[in-house]
């Protein structure tokens, strides 16, 4: 056996001080030499444990092999056989807990940088002239119609797979742009919006019709889609878009945002380009972001780029429990975000005109592990203290928007508002209705939403008689 190469190729990035002032992508991507060097490290394990670590089972060794043989077209085809949105997954998948953690070389501390290679291959494809891309060959239409609600990763994946199997697919999207959280939540500097849009264009090239500005439950209901408009099946991929608040005094003061609003203004509405774009966002000196997940990191890093002088992340547990991807927490820290661990806000105070000025917090300590296995934070008595803030962003997480469940007969929902659907097929208890992604799992990941979209497509195909 040849000697193992444990030199994982680092990702070239913009310098922290530079990138903290612009919205351009942080990661710059591998050069061809770096990609080749990284691909050459793969030992092509016959048992390919890496594949089992990927929720959509990308044939990892196979695409890496094509890459190192210089057959980029083949690499693209292999990748896309399982993952219709590789340029996105390569950027935002939590690889460290999925494919890369399963890689044989992970035990040696140097897993193959699968995500970065995936990003490289997908970027290569995006930069090819249309003529040299693998041609889209679609089967003849089978005359059956599918309605997909929501154009996030779950909906886009289900739609693409159904279209490839000959169905006529229409996506209904509430917002004015397709892409879901990929457009309104994850910022430009982590996932450039033109990349999301080229993936959306790819899905459209498969014959999928996307109806924007269409809020299902308002303009049309799920039952009407089937009974009046003749759709044979419906896939619900509406995500978990309802923001949670702390429910503490003063939370409705001016300049206290949900992370959804803060990020939507910045990403979807391009408030970072105000006043060239019409939608504003408040900018001040000191901002506190409450929470510890990817959403909190994204909000804090957006704030830095908007020009805030002091950006705090306030999290009630310790660093070890941060739910955000480690890489993103590190990026945030390098850029100058200040972490306040074991701290929890108890109320906001404002001035006479209704603007927030201060946040009262308490210190926490960690007790016994709770249901999630993480140690439960407990308030330290008498530890109250004040933080001055101009703006606060609440990034606690989201639950599904009840719009669909409230207007659709016969769906089963959990206490947390998620829709009950089979884990293996996505089938709900309602006839002809499937669901997948964050609407079923609560806030999760892009790739798990895509996996759910895929499984549902396969199940729909089976149910509709092929």
């Amino acid at each position, binding site marked *: 056996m040849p000697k193992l190469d444990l030199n994982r190729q680092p990702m070239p990035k913009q310098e922290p001080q530079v990138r903290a002032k612009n919205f351009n992508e942080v990661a710059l991507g591998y050069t061809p030499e770096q990609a080749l060097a990284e691909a050459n490290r793969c030992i092509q394990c016959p048992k390919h444990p890496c594949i089992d670590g990927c929720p959509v089972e990308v044939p990892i060794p196979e695409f890496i092999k094509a890459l190192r043989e210089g057959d980029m077209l083949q690499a693209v085809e292999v990748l896309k056989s399982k993952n219709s949105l590789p340029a996105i997954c390569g950027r935002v998948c939590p690889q460290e807990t999925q494919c890369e953690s399963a890689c044989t070389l992970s035990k040696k501390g140097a897993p193959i940088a699968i995500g970065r290679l995936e990003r490289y291959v997908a970027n290569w494809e995006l930069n090819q002239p249309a003529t040299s891309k693998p041609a889209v060959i679609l089967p003849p239409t089978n005359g059956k119609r599918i309605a997909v609600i929501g154009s996030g990763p779950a909906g886009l994946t289900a739609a693409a797979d159904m279209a490839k199997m000959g169905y006529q697919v229409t996506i209904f999207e509430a917002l004015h742009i397709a892409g879901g959280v990929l457009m309104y939540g994850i910022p430009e500097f982590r996932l450039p919006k033109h990349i999301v849009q080229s993936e959306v264009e790819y899905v459209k090239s498969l014959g999928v019709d996307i109806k*924007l500005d269409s*809020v299902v439950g*308002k303009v049309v209901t799920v039952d009407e889609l089937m009974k009046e408009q003749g759709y044979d099946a419906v896939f619900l991929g509406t995500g978990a878009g309802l*923001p949670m608040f702390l429910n503490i005094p003063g939370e409705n003061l001016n300049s206290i945002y949900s992370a959804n609003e803060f990020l939507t203004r910045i990403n979807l509405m391009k408030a970072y380009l105000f*006043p060239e774009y*019409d939608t504003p966002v*408040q900018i001040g000196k000191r901002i506190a972001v409450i929470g510890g997940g990817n959403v909190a990191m994204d909000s804090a890093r957006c704030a830095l780029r908007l020009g805030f002088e002091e950006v705090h992340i306030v999290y009630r547990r310790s660093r070890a429990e941060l739910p955000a991807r480690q890489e993103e927490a590190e990026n945030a820290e390098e850029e100058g975000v200040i972490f306040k661990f074991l701290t929890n806000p108890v109320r906001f105070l404002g001035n006479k005109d209704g603007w927030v000025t201060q946040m009262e917090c308490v210190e926490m300590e960690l007790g016994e592990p709770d249901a999630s296995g993480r140690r439960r934070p407990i308030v330290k008595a008498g530890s109250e203290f004040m933080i001055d803030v101009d703006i606060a962003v609440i990034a606690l997480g989201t639950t599904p928007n009840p719009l669909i469940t409230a207007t659709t007969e016969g769906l089963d929902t959990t206490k947390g508002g998620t829709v009950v659907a089979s884990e293996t097929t996505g089938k709900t208890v309602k006839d002809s209705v499937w669901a997948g992604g964050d609407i079923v799992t609560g806030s999760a990941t892009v790739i798990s939403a895509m996996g759910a979209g895929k499984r549902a497509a396969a199940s729909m195909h089976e149910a509709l008689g092929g």
Partner: protein
Amino acid sequence: MYKILHREDLVPGIHLFRVEAPAVAAKAQAGQFVIVRVDEKGERIPLTVADWDREEGSLTIVFMEVGTTTRKMAILKKGDYILNFVGPLGLPTHIERLGTVVCVGGGVGVAPIVPIARAFKEAGNKVISIMGARSWNLLFWEERLRSVSNELTVTTDDGSYGRKGVVTEPLKEILDSGQKVDMVMAVGPVVMMKFCAKTTNPYGVKTVVSLNPIMVDGTGMCGCCRVEIGEKTKFTCVDGPDFDGHQVDWDLLLARQHIYLEAEKRSLELWEQREGRETNA
């Protein structure tokens, strides 16, 4: 893209569009709203449904020029397009047969009150309407409102037309007249709605108002539109826009409407400069 089928300048600074949007028109009901984005760089703003024509597949909106978006809209002509037009959003006004309903519309709020008054009348209520504006030249749709009401009082602040004064004066007289009023519905500027609710409060008459906080998505996703009703936080776009006027925290609503005042001024100035250059060129 949504085509403007018809444009009317109702009074200075207030315009009407009939917009081609068959799916929205098919579902629209009194009290609901749409979200409009004029162009690629535009903001999403809410506007109330003022009327609909299901056969033509059109929806009518009436808007007042206040900032960048509404100024951009004001220069559009018949045959032009609006980039995004989403709806119908929010819950429709709850219509039932109650007996006597007083409908109050102020300023641009006269437009949305018309379909509401019409729905109450069609449901078998006696509808007493009051409409008000600052001056005679800002009044529109008097005849439309009259045609869907049993009685109508018109007020102007300066007394240049109809009764001199504000809408709460005739409202109070109706309440004092001894006739049974089962509900009051008020749509207009925040201050008007607040004072309508104040006026009816001592009489214990249920008063519904249509709140207009700043919004972004209009589907319950962002929480920008939060208001406090009886000390509970509600999202106006999905829980409203209609709420019990006696429970609304008006100061909070007013404060939250002013969050972007400075930015909006800057945005408008910049747009005016740009427009000025273009129209002079």
